[in-house]
């Protein structure tokens, strides 16, 4: 189970409303390399992980991704706060306004809805952990491109926190991969 704690993992701050940036940033909410994809991928893969370490790492990184999803949602909420239909239209968010008003929705930067085809569960721990490491690298790169797209120092700061977490998660998944391969070699499972 999960228990909700009424606070963010990191103080998510923006310097100003910025609808264009919100349109790009939403990809880390509902895009292929976003936090929803990450959380659902890892929390789903844990059931077919064979060792204590791999079960724990999928469970615990998956849980942290839920906290990151909430940070992204908060940033988008703040970037779009009180935007009018006209402002949304000018920022190329008229389509979003027609379907959702100012509500958040799980889409990528060009409006494609989130899909389970973004993620995989192969049942093979080495295959799944390699996917997880690639996912962390793709998310790290996305955060870098998003940092490049904004000149807001507050937003850059929060995005940089999330970027660095991807590097740490990559490291932990890599350690789990080495340990599970040692385990498989010792058991002669191929």
């Amino acid at each position, binding site marked *: 189970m999960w*228990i909700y704690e009424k606070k963010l993992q990191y103080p998510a701050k923006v310097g100003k409303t910025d609808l264009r940036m919100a349109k790009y940033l939403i990809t880390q909410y509902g895009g292929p390399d976003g936090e929803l994809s990450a959380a659902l991928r890892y929390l789903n893969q844990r059931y077919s992980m064979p060792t204590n370490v791999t079960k724990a790492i999928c469970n615990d990184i998956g849980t942290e991704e839920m906290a990151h999803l909430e940070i992204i949602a908060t940033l988008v*909420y703040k970037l779009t706060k009180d935007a009018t239909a006209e402002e949304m239209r000018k920022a190329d968010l008229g389509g979003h306004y027609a379907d959702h008003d100012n509500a958040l929705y799980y889409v990528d930067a060009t409006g494609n809805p989130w899909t389970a085809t973004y993620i995989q569960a192969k049942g093979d721990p080495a295959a799944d952990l390699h996917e997880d490491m690639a996912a962390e690298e793709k998310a790290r790169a996305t955060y870098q491109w998003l940092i490049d797209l904004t000149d807001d120092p507050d937003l850059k700061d929060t995005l940089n926190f999330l970027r660095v977490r991807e590097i740490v998660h990559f490291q932990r998944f890599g350690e789990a991969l080495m340990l599970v391969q040692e385990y498989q070699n010792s058991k002669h499972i191929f």
Partner: protein
Amino acid sequence: MQREQLEMLKRLQALEFTAVDFHLYLDTHPTDQRALADYANTVREMEQVKAAYTRNYGPLLPTDNLGEPCWRWIEEPWPWEIEY
């Protein structure tokens, strides 16, 4: 949100984040004695700050809502509404 509350919230966020980072490290290094001790010290300090925060400003968990005259859990601001 008043400055004093905000500073305490940020202190709590920093401590809880430190605990999360040690936690993930311990998942792949479960017998590292130094990390176990650092984790324990961080959590002890975090629990103290958390107790002081909820005493002064209301519940972070629904189960913190003990001895309150009403269900303060529903009070604003929610996490996405806080201006840092």
